[in-house]
């Protein structure tokens, strides 16, 4: 296969693959939304004056930290029925939503921990430090976007499973490498600029705070 042919195949399949990548973004955003809501509730519980509530919030947060999302993905895929009936109406439970739910578990733990710190800073009128939550959250979104590729193992039609469809369709064995590299390009193209920009924002905020950077970065890696 000549380079021109390879490029041609990739161009032909671009709308299909790009559509798949939109699914990755959708899955990730829904996961972030679900995870942020529940994580915020947990952070709020941990900050509440009552000891029992605070302890419960911490216990649930620790539970979510130990749950491997990849295994949880299979768990939900097998145990949530594809369709269920509510008073004579049949509702289907799409696989992509199962993927979002599985990924959201990791987000819950992250938001619970980071929002707790941010909230404390905000209460102490340490607003710049509290705002660090925004770049951290966005950097976590990047991690979730990359993790959303695992949805392919339960058959969600996102970019990785579409890569496999393309490979089967063009049936050129050497095309395989190029299709995968092209898909990696999508992730890099979205995640690198986003991560870089958030890194800048973070540095700015940290300069405002003048605090130690090592501790903060410890949180963003989770």
């Amino acid at each position: 296969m000549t380079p021109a042919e390879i490029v041609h195949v990739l161009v032909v399949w671009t709308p299909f693959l790009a559509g798949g990548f939109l699914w990755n973004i959708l899955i990730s955003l829904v996961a972030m939304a679900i995870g942020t809501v529940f994580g915020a509730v947990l952070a709020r519980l941990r900050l509440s004056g009552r000891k029992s509530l605070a302890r419960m919030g911490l216990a649930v947060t620790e539970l979510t930290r130990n749950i491997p999302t990849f295994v949880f993905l299979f768990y939900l895929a097998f145990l949530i029925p594809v369709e269920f009936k509510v008073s004579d109406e049949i509702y289907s439970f799409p696989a992509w939503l199962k993927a979002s739910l599985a990924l959201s578990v990791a987000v819950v733990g992250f938001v619970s921990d980071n929002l707790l710190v941010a909230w404390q800073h905000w209460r102490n009128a340490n607003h710049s430090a509290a705002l660090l939550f925004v770049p951290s959250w966005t950097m976590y979104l990047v991690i979730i976007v990359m993790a959303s590729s695992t949805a392919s193992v339960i058959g969600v039609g996102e970019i990785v499973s579409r890569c496999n469809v393309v490979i089967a369709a063009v049936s050129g064995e050497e095309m395989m490498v190029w299709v995968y590299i092209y898909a990696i390009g999508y992730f890099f193209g979205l995640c690198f600029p986003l991560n870089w920009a958030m890194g800048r924002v973070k540095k700015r905020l940290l300069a405002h705070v003048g605090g130690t950077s090592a501790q903060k970065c410890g949180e963003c890696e989770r």
Partner: protein
Amino acid sequence: MVSHGMLRAACVLALIAILSSQEAFADRLDLIQMRGVLIVGVKSDYPPFGMLDANGRLIGFEPDLAAELARRLNVRLQLVAVSSTNRLQKLEEGAIDVVIATLGDTPQRRQIATLIEPNYYASGVAVVAPPNAHLSSWADLRGKKVCATQGAYFNRSMAQRFLLDLQVFNGTRDTKMALRDGRCVAWLYDDTGIVGLLNDPEWTSYETPLPSTMVSPWAMAIAASEHGSELERAISDAIADWHRSGWLIETEQRWGIKSSRFLADTHQLWTQTEPDGGPVCARLASGEWPSECRNKLLLTSTDVSGLQHIGLLIKERTGLNLTIFYDAYDRNLFLAGLWMTLQLMAGCIVGSLILGCLGALVAEGMPWLCGLVRLSAAIGRMTPPLLLIYLIFFGVGHIVVTRYGWTFDGSMIAVLCLSLYTGCAIVYTLLEACALLRNQEPGFALGWRGLPRALRLAYTPVIAALINVVKATGMASAIAVPELISASTAIVAEQGNAAVMMNVLMIAYFLLVMGVVRLFNCLERWMLQHDAR
């Protein structure tokens, strides 16, 4: 007058004789031998298992079995066509002696007829796919559109066990057209029915790429009242002999049926011998076959002892099918998966640390390489590990195999890719720690001696990254590494106990991750104590 009276007496006598003879034939085998004919019900519409030839005679795989049975009993054979709906009814009426008509062995049927073990054949579920469908395992069909025909008993369980997106069509003709038009990637079908279908010239290019699953053994049946009779024993012995001699496999070949795993496995089981030379599958003192030679799916807790008895009792009482505890095969599969997962976890922790430290050392020690290392670390961090695993295992792996003939081990590739991803994150945190250390003491440079200090400073994020990679080891299942997830989904596929297995898998992984977290916490405490001293 006299003759009239005698005739009447003769009639009464004859009636008594008939009635008493019914009594005398407590065993149907005596009746069969007396009448000199064995009457067997077979199918007429299920080629090549039971069908009509050009002369309207019943022929096929099952009629051959019936003929051999009659020969062994030294009687003539009479075949009767039966259907799925009337086969057991005719048996009960006494119109036929034996049913050999694609009858699946189920607990419900065992209530209304005597089903004879060992089973003589088995059907399973397979798929018909167009050529070049690129299907190598059932997991390849997860989430894919798969055509199925309305009413097939396996539709629901197959969708649940293999996460298929089933497109159910009304009849065989509609399903055929849907597959031809590409509305689904494959067609779910009974593997014994496929034989007839693929003979159609239009379908010869289609294939059955996957091994049959949800195997349902077939049994010969005699009337419920014949349980424990001589007839049952005679037929049972015949089938056992056929398994031992491989005659069933020959018969299968003679009819052009794709060789079934069931016959091969059963042949192997029935020819196995004990250390003392006797066959494993020999009748026990009770006259029963040993439990390992019987239909595993239909054993009840009363048939077995020990762990298996407890396991089956739990299943019967609660519905929880804990096969990984009582079934040796499933248990070994699961334990092997656990061992593989432990190895992957250890490999990923060590690999990530090595790659992370080496990357940081190179970046710090050789300033002219620093930019390159930083760039590769950025790319590594922004590449989804699963995609990297596919790229290396399938893409690069294929090129290497065709050029150099080397094959990669899946688990090694999974460890390498996951370590790369995590190692890149560790490089970043180490470099940041170095920058911080340089703030404290301007002359600091990362070398072999400075490494422990940098690692100590970056302890929390490094450990967080390592715990993440431990959680992600399941990704190896995507390239069929036999670890915990692969083992669990394989057991679900066989046993259909998704709820049990998924909970067991989740708890196992949860405990493993917790163990690793504990281990790192201990390490931290030990280091703190060490520092204090």
